[in-house]
């Protein structure tokens, strides 16, 4: 039986570890060293699924890790992670997805700005003429 202190430390370390799974490079690291083939590790990944529960999930800063954790339950995914190209692709897509919302916002702002431009142009001309 572990003490409360030990349990809390375990909580913190598991929290950190599960969030590291959001990093595709780390996943590649794990795959290349064969961790993803070990049965105990696979069982541990299954155990970590408790982070999906709301009372635990609220501590996650990087929620992408949950998606990665779900994918890691599949053997096919674990096998593919050995490939550096694969993880590079995942990294790229992840970044693009990450930027999706901000891109949408900038596009929206641009559209708004374009709408307002025709209204702002005449006054400068008027001033120049006055001068």
């Amino acid at each position, binding site marked *: 039986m*572990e*003490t*409360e*202190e*030990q*349990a*809390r*430390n*375990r*909580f*913190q*370390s*598991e*929290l*950190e*570890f599960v*969030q*590291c799974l*959001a*990093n*595709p*490079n*780390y996943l590649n*690291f*794990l795959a290349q*060293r064969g*961790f993803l083939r070990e*049965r*105990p*590790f696979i*069982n*541990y990944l299954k*155990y970590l699924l*408790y982070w999906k529960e*709301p*009372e*635990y999930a*609220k*501590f*996650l*800063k*990087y*929620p*992408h*890790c949950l998606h990665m954790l779900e994918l890691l339950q599949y053997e096919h995914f674990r096998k593919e992670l050995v490939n550096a190209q694969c993880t590079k692709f995942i990294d790229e897509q*992840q*970044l693009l997805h*990450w*930027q999706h*919302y*901000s891109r949408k*916002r*900038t596009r929206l702002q641009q559209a708004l700005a374009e709408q307002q431009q025709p209204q702002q142009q005449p006054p400068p001309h008027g001033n120049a003429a006055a001068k």
Partner: protein
Amino acid sequence: MSANTLGSQSDKATKERNKNLYLKPAVFYFYFRELIEMLALSRNQKLPQPGEDTQILELLVQRDREFQDLMEVAQQQGKVHQEMQLLEKEVEKRDSDIQQLQKQLKEAEHILATAVYQAKEKLKSIDKARKGSISSEEIIKYAHRISASNAVCAPLNWVPGDPRRPYPTDLEMRSGMLGHMANLPTNGVNGHLPGDALAAGRLPDVLTPHYPWQSSDVPVGMLPPHHGNDFGLEPPGHNKENEDDVEAMSTDSSSSSSDSD
């Protein structure tokens, strides 16, 4: 046909008797005619055999009486037969009624079964929804937390080359709790709980937990699910061979929950 054969009818079934009765009228007629002729003859002749006539007459009366009795019995049987037919019709009607009711009952049962099934499904989904219900305030708080730290949405001024990422970077990982534990020179035993080193006082003070989310935010009940080390795992990053390039875990105050809490 002698009197004997006529007398033996009482042994047979009514039908037989009736059948014979059908023959009787012809026989009667024949006998009656014979008798009348005999009587006519005897009128003319001085009754040479009176005994025979009386006998025959008596026999005739007797047969007539029997005939009447049998007719009555036949009538009664006819009545009974009619009643039986009526009752049979009734029975048929009731049978069809019962079958009708049976069909309706089956239909009703089917409808009820469907309704009950759907109600159960609905209850299941209500249960599920109730289980997953979270206060909107918490959701908003969480949404703010993960957005403000740019964990799920890239900062608006992000350009390629910016080191920020939607996942913990190398640096963050190394500066975390697990990272520091993996760098311990005395950490040679694989598989021991991370807390052991801390408890044994082998970690420098700076690494004792001081992050806001860990000390005050975590309610006492919020501990990881007990797993009793079934999977006999060796957490990667705790092996000596991985010390140099181990990407350890991050817990600056920015990594796990906290900022705006």
